[in-house]
Each structure stands twice: as structure tokens, then as C-alpha cells.
């Protein structure tokens, strides 16, 4: 199996594909181009991105590309399924807590300043976004600004894997832990996926074997920074407008689609045990999950975990 590493979307990308080297190389090139183009479309850190254009047009209709429209239609559905725990409209809160530049740039700062004058959660509800499917138009209410960080990476990983699958018999795209798997490597019945220790990523807590589909992890220990004397992370709890205080350090979701794995990983992490059962019920239990708590204990619902088997290495 051929592999190709590069950096995009402020994270490490791994492409792995099985097939003839010449075809795989062609596939890697096309896949990389798609990821870079998608980053340019969905990044909130680029003024030229389509997402930034949409945010600037709040209050008036915006003609969206099919890709942006698709992602926002999915986001709207998941907003309701997660009872608002997945909410792309928390961008003002993200900026207020200091995440106003890319994580690569943020990590270069020792601390960012406090914005005490701004209030948490002071923005329109995401439910007020209007989508006109027939014309591909999006209307954000005045004052709304979106961050697609909780869904776009998974969506891009899945689309990229589908592109790469045109060039290979089995392939995987791993975008910083959000991955989509197509087919199976020769001689394998499932894909092995290592779950990292949230506090020591170099350590593997366990390795799962999963069927083709998607795996994504959300953690409160990865994208962290200091704002004044406060320790911050990137998972905003929409109920408070502040970085979520969670029972778990990370949640890994196995699901048919990478975007839903990413969304539910985030929602379950924010919601914790109190909300998990209700979220699973609302989405028809389309996913399995593992949660790791502060003592590194692994939690998961008995029923959904039955679909995961553990690698026999």
C-alpha cells in the first residue's frame, strides 16, 4: 500500500491507497488538489474563502457553490439531531476566547488577550439560517458568522477518499484523525485504527478494527492555548458560549460517513454522558463510540460497541 503525507487544513493529512504505483500517484495528486481547493473554500482564516464571503453577506442572500450548500444542509440537520450541541454559529464565541487565527499561528503565541467586553453566546441561533435548495441560496441572519470546523474536515476526508478510490482498490484518507476508509486492504477483513491517549498522543490506548466507513475523534486536549491566564480549547459549548467543561477528554465515533462521525464526536464530547443517550436515540444509533475520561478509562454504550471488534495484533 502506497502512502502520501502532507499538511493542509492546519493538520496532518495521510493518504493511503492500494493499487498500481502509477495510478496511485495520479490519485494522490488529484486528492491533494481537492483538499487544497476545499480548504480554500471552507477556511474561515482566509478572507478569499467562500465561507468568509458567506459570513460577510449575513443579512442578504448568498449564492453558494454546491459543495458549501451541501455542507450547510448537513450542518442544519445535525444541529437539530444533536439538540444544538453541534452549532457552526459559535464563531463569535470562538473569536472571543482567542481562536481568531489559524491554530498554527495561535500556537506561536504564548497567550492571546482577553476580550472581557464581549458577551458569550450573543449571536443569532443557527436555526435562523435559511437555505433555498432550488436556487442554491443561503441567507444568514444579520450578526451570524459560521465556522465549519466541526464538519468540513470530515466531509473533505470522505470526498477525497471517494476521489482516491477511483484510482485504487482500497484506500484511506486520514485528516488529523478524521478518516474515511474505502474497500479493504488485500488479505484484511477490517481496517486497524489506533486510538490515541488524549494526554500522550504517542501512546496507543487501544486498536480497533473497523469496517469500511468513517472514524473521527474529537478531543479537548489538542487545540489548546492560553488567553490571559486562562487555559482555552476549541470546543465551544453552545449552551454557555465558553470552552466546554467535559467529563471526557476525547470521543471517537465510528459511523458510515466521516462528516457525521466528526459531528457526533464533538456533540458527544460536549454533551457527555448526560446527553449521549438522547443524541444516539435521535439519530437512530447510526454510530458507535468510545469515550476516554480523565483517568483514561474507556467508556462506550454496550449495544453500539458490539459493531466494533478489537484488533488481534
Amino acid at each position: 500500500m502506497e502512502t502520501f503525507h502532507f499538511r493542509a487544513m492546519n493538520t496532518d493529512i495521510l493518504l493511503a491507497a492500494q493499487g498500481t504505483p502509477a495510478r496511485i500517484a495520479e490519485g494522490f495528486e488529484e486528492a491533494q488538489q481537492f483538499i487544497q481547493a476545499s480548504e480554500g473554500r471552507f477556511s474561515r482564516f482566509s478572507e478569499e474563502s467562500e465561507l468568509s464571503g458567506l459570513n460577510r453577506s449575513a443579512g442578504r442572500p448568498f449564492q453558494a457553490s454546491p459543495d458549501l450548500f451541501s455542507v450547510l444542509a448537513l450542518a442544519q440537520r445535525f444541529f437539530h439531531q444533536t439538540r444544538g450541541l453541534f452549532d457552526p454559529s459559535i464563531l463569535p464565541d470562538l473569536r472571543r476566547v482567542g481562536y481568531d487565527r489559524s491554530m498554527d499561528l495561535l500556537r506561536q503565541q504564548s497567550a492571546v488577550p482577553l476580550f472581557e467586553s464581549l458577551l458569550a453566546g450573543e449571536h443569532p441561533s443557527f436555526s435562523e439560517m435559511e437555505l433555498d435548495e432550488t436556487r442554491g441560496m443561503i441567507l444568514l441572519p444579520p450578526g451570524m458568522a459560521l465556522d465549519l470546523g466541526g464538519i468540513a474536515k470530515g466531509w473533505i476526508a470522505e470526498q477525497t477518499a471517494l476521489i482516491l478510490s477511483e484510482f485504487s482498490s482500497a484506500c484511506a484518507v486520514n485528516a488529523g484523525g478524521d478518516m474515511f476508509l474505502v474497500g479493504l486492504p488485500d488479505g484484511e477483513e477490517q481496517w486497524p485504527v489506533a486510538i490515541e491517549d488524549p494526554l500522550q498522543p504517542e501512546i496507543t490506548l487501544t486498536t480497533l478494527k473497523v469496517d469500511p466507513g468513517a472514524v473521527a475523534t474529537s478531543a479537548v486536549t489538542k487545540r489548546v492555548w492560553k488567553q490571559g491566564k486562562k487555559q482555552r480549547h476549541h470546543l465551544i459549548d453552545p449552551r454557555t458560549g465558553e470552552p466546554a467543561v467535559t467529563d471526557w477528554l476525547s470521543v471517537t465515533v465510528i459511523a458510515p460517513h466521516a462528516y457525521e462521525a466528526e459531528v457526533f464526536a464533538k456533540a458527544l464530547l460536549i454533551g457527555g454522558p448526560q446527553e449521549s443517550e438522547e443524541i444516539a436515540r435521535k439519530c437512530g444509533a447510526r454510530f458507535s463510540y468510545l469515550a476516554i475520561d480523565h483517568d483514561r478509562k474507556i467508556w462506550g454504550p454496550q449495544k453500539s460497541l458490539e459493531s466494533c471488534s478489537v484488533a488481534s495484533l
Partner: protein
Amino acid sequence: MKIIKTALHYWFAIVSLFSFLAGWGMLAHSLKPIQPSQTTTVNTASLPALPPIQAFGGGSGNGSGLNFVAPRTQSGFGFPILRTGGS
């Protein structure tokens, strides 16, 4: 006037000399920096004992019947083990 200037010269020379000696004495009796060889400690990552999986369900703790394998980082497959841990 010349006497005053000469006195000032002597005064500055004496004060400088005593300040230098005082500083030397303070440094000589202060704590020594720790040698690099004393500070270099190797923090080897110790693998935690694998915790039992616990079924979610209001803390009822029903076992899921899943077994976890010992952590390992090297792939025994013909491809790299995919890793996930958030980004």
C-alpha cells in the same frame, strides 16, 4: 577646584573598586547553576494499565464484553495503522 576634582576621582575609583569586590563576593557565595548533566532526565512514557471498558448507561457500569489489546505502535500489516486522537 582642582582639589575637588581630584577628590572626586579618588572617590569614584574607591567606590568602584569596593562595588566590584562586593559583587564578586555575592556571586561567589550564591547558589551555583545546576550542571546540564544533572538536569537531563529521560522521561520515558510508561504505558498505563489498560482500563476495563465500561458500558455507558447512567453509571451502571455494565460490561461490554470487549477486550483490548496491548498498546503497540508498529504495524504488523502491510500498511500503517491509522491513528485517531483529535486534531
